[in-house]
């Protein structure tokens, strides 16, 4: 059991120590290497948590639910650091970033991983809130790193909306404590997940309801649910691409995890309102809204940011519908979306670097000039819109079919949203991947390895999901009711 505790501490201490080290390391090449190595070791440590989870204490909680998030978080954190190493070298060459910026960037990257791991592993809802706040601040700084007018404006917008979101979430957190206090007593017990979930049945339901509304709106802003999504496309489009990948693939999940935890509290209390319909409604609005917004995009990173809103909508919708099958599908979809979307951003980042633009209209005929990138983009878009045999198809199919059992009309609306999004993405893809090539033909320098690794996983998951993983996800789905 002690191995579990030290592993849990290591996934926090390692990124924190690396962040401190990187903030003083002058050479950016060395920094990038340290960044990758540290992220890799953190990932291995996180995997070891699967084998030996530590018992929950006052600070740390590792259970079957958050270990899925932690492993996914550290894995994408690692591949994004590999991608970032090559991406950054190019940014230095073109002079968009200076070595000083990069020192800051690498330190912030590890600090971001630390904050996200802390938010996922914390047993204390106050600590989790502080961690999510720091993750927000870190990403704000990284979004604005290019110091262009657009980047600073995007960072400012993200800052204001993100701050209001986490402020509302804090109010919800305080209300949860108020609800818990008469039952579990004053002090730290009123903020620990482990004691909250055992006593939630006796909490004042009205107070819990109000708390959940604040928490859903607050953390929902960070998940990027419409109509609270306004920061998301700007932040994705203007920041460095590795950060876009981490935002879409990880940070949205972390906020989602917070919402899920609080949903569990309400599910446990028989007199509180059912959180499902609220979440399903917000999710469905996000899906349909984002699907239509996809048609008007001219910036490729912005387009995939809207696609992230759509997919987070699908996931929140599925968790809202609830039940073992929908929860299973939602978890699977979350993992598939993280892998696929971050790989798409790795691809798009390289495309934007070789073409020198993010405008969709200026990117043409990629499959001719850059076969690897072009076909990766084709594969990625086909995977993300949910075409078989990729993993996203399976999870979306499960979500739609399980919704059909419970609420056929909602399933129709969801299917409609998914089809509209499919149309938009495939339409834009045609122009970018095929046709007469324009622009630079310079070969891409960044490593294609992270892209291939993610796509391989997505493909394998779509064709054959190993039984241990299925059992694990099913178990977690049962846990979520």
């Amino acid at each position, binding site marked *: 059991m002690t191995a579990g505790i030290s592993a849990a501490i290591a996934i926090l201490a390692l990124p924190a120590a690396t962040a401190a080290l990187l903030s003083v390391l002058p050479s950016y090449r060395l920094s990038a290497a340290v960044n990758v190595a540290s992220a890799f070791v953190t990932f291995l440590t996180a995997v070891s948590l699967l084998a030996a989870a530590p018992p929950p204490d006052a600070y740390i909680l590792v259970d079957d639910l958050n270990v899925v998030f932690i492993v996914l978080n550290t894995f994408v954190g690692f591949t994004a650091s590999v991608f970032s190493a090559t991406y950054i070298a190019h940014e230095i060459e073109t002079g968009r970033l200076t070595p000083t910026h990069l020192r800051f960037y690498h330190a912030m990257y590890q600090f971001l991983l630390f904050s996200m791991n802390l938010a996922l592993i914390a047993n204390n809802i106050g600590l989790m809130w502080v961690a999510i706040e720091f993750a927000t601040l870190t990403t704000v700084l990284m979004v604005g790193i290019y*110091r262009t007018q657009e980047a600073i404006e995007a960072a400012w917008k993200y800052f204001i909306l993100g701050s209001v979101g986490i402020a509302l979430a804090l109010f919800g957190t*305080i209300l949860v404590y*108020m609800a818990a206090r008469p039952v579990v007593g004053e002090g730290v017990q009123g903020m620990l997940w482990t004691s909250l979930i055992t006593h939630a049945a006796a909490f004042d339901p009205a107070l819990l309801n109000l708390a959940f509304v604040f928490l859903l709106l607050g953390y929902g802003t960070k998940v990027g649910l419409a109509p609270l999504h306004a920061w998301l496309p700007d932040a994705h489009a203007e920041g460095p691409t590795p950060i876009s990948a981490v935002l879409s693939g990880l940070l949205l999940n972390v906020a989602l995890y917070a919402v899920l935890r609080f949903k569990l509290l309400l599910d446990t209390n028989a007199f509180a309102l059912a959180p499902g319909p609220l979440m399903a409604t917000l999710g469905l609005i996000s899906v349909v809204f984002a699907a239509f917004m996809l048609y008007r995009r001219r910036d490729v990173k912005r387009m995939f940011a809207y696609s992230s809103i759509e997919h987070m909508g699908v996931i929140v919708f599925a968790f809202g519908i609830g039940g073992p099958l929908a929860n299973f599908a939602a978890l699977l979809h979350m993992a598939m979306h993280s892998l696929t979307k971050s790989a798409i951003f790795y691809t798009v980042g390289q495309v934007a670097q070789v073409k020198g633009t993010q405008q969709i209209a200026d990117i043409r005929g990629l499959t001719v000039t850059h076969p690897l990138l072009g076909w990766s983009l084709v594969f990625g878009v086909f995977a993300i819109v949910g075409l078989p045999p990729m993993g996203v198809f399976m999870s979306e199919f499960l979500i739609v079919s399980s919704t059909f059992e419970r609420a056929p009309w909602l399933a129709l609306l969801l299917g409609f949203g998914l089809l509209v999004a499919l149309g938009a993405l495939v339409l834009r893809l045609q122009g970018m991947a095929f046709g007469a090539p324009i622009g630079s033909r310079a070969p891409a320098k960044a490593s294609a390895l992270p892209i291939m690794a993610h796509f391989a996983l997505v493909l394998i998951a779509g064709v054959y999901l190993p039984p241990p993983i299925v059992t694990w996800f099913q178990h977690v789905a049962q846990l979520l009711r």
Partner: protein
Amino acid sequence: MKGLAFDVAHLLAGGLVLISFMLLYQNRLYALLNVFALQAVVLSLSVAWQAYVQDANHLYVTAAIAFGFKAVIIPLALHRIIAELGIQRDVENVVGVGPTMLAGLALVALSEVVMLRIASEADVLAQEDLAFALSVVLLGLLMMVVRRNAVSMVVGFMSLENGLILAATGAKGMPLVVEISVAFSVLVALVVIGVFLFRISERFETVDAHALDRFRGDQR
């Protein structure tokens, strides 16, 4: 003693709501900052009173942070920023003062109705405190919505945060209050530095948040 403890806490919390209203109708930036500093002073008094009543010494730290950081440092820094940036001193409201005040009244009524009904099982002090805190939070949000100027948006956010600190200290025995107020101070400091950075880079002719509307990236 119980009666006095309640009355003073009530008075200070009510004072915070009143000052939130005063913030809503200030149409000059310097006056706005002064009123905000006043609110921070009242907040620190309120937190200190809670620390005394609850016999919770760590809350004195929160009170000190509220006073030193929000009543002194931030207003002074913003004063300098306004002077150096040459920001227009008059604040433009998106909505007129009259409708804004009416909306504010409605929000306070809403939070009283919601909280007083809900928290009936919690003790009276905490219940009233939460109702006032929610009012301050909602008024802060309202201010962020009706103001166009970035500095007054920041002030709106900080007054929203005052409401949160009031709620957190009113929740008896809540752990991590000090940590949370420190985390919030970092946040606020970064917002202020952000405003300052705009000037350094001289990328905006104005820190009017309305200018952000130009930025749609792909809808030109």
